[in-house]
């Protein structure tokens, strides 16, 4: 078994031979190779667009999580003000778990950005090579005898074929990565729907309900105390402290 460098060279060579074997004569090789180059340029442009879409989706997901984090912060504060340390703890526990998700999203965004950058570089280089190849193609067709052309065509097509193989791998890797992200998002959706995973981002969940109950009951207590005061019953020591709880 050889190392990765030897294998990468071997594989690239095999791909190029396959490409060149398709054509029967030098002129056909030039035209066919050029066609494949234009197609590869389209492929890499599509690859870049796909990665950009995947990146946007991750960013959206992250901004949703950030909103939820801010909400949990507020809820923890509210719960403490209502002397419900248990609920505050619950809110902060969820916050910690969401923060871990945000971190993992950040990492994925970074990976995608790196792949996008490689694709963009690959596209620029391919564009420049295709231009150079097109010029050379015309020169070869016009100036060389069939025997000389054979060699020149082989050189030019091999050089650009190698870059096409390189860009091809970058496109494939980016595609694998975006598919992985899609599969992960689908799996999370499925687990959430089946109830196996708590959806902390759902509206009106249990924590919301409990906090609402706390504020409702303190409102009720306040009103009760007010009513009692009006009716001249407020002198009972145990009710007197309640109105403060609602406001502070």
């Amino acid at each position, binding site marked *: 078994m050889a190392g*990765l*460098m*030897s294998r990468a*060279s071997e594989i690239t060579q095999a791909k190029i031979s396959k490409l060149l074997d398709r054509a029967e004569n030098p002129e056909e090789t030039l035209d066919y190779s050029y066609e494949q180059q234009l197609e590869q340029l389209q492929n890499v442009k599509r690859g870049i667009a796909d990665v950009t879409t995947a990146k946007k989706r991750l960013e959206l997901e992250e901004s949703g999580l950030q909103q939820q984090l801010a909400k949990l912060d507020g809820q923890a504060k509210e719960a403490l003000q209502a002397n419900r340390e248990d609920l505050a703890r619950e809110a902060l526990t969820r916050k910690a778990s969401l923060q871990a998700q945000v971190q993992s999203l950040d990492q994925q965004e970074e990976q995608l950005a790196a792949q996008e950058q490689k694709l963009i570089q690959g596209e620029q*280089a391919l564009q*420049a090579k295709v231009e150079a190849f097109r010029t050379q193609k015309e020169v070869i067709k016009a100036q060389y005898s069939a025997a000389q052309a054979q060699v020149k065509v082989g050189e030019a097509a091999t050089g650009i074929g190698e870059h096409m193989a390189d860009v091809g791998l970058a496109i494939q890797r980016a595609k694998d990565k975006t598919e992985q992200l899609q599969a992960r998002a689908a799996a999370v959706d499925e687990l959430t729907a089946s109830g196996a995973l708590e959806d902390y981002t759902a509206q009106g969940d249990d924590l919301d309900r409990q906090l609402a109950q706390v504020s409702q009951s303190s409102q009720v207590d306040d009103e009760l105390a007010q009513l009692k005061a009006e009716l001249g019953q407020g002198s009972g020591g145990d009710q007197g402290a309640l109105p403060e709880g609602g406001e502070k």
Partner: protein
Amino acid sequence: MIVRLMGEGQWQVDDGLKARLDELDAETERAVEAGDEEALHTALRAMHEAVRGAGEKLDHAHLAASDAVIPPDDLSLDEARAMLAAGEEPFPDLA
């Protein structure tokens, strides 16, 4: 000689670098066999750095083929295994 760093471009380097690259290439092989992704990345990164540090980057419009092709330095263990296997899996065909 001309070396391609996949995903980055081509460099013109001194022929003397070949021995060092072969040494590091053997390390990639050992890392894959041992299932050690960190060692794999270390070896690949060392290859990339050796080429970038010792060579001159070729213009994008350059059409020459390379004498050596070095895979991306963030190749995963699975991708490396697929590359070393006979099936040429991670590379799509050109035509």
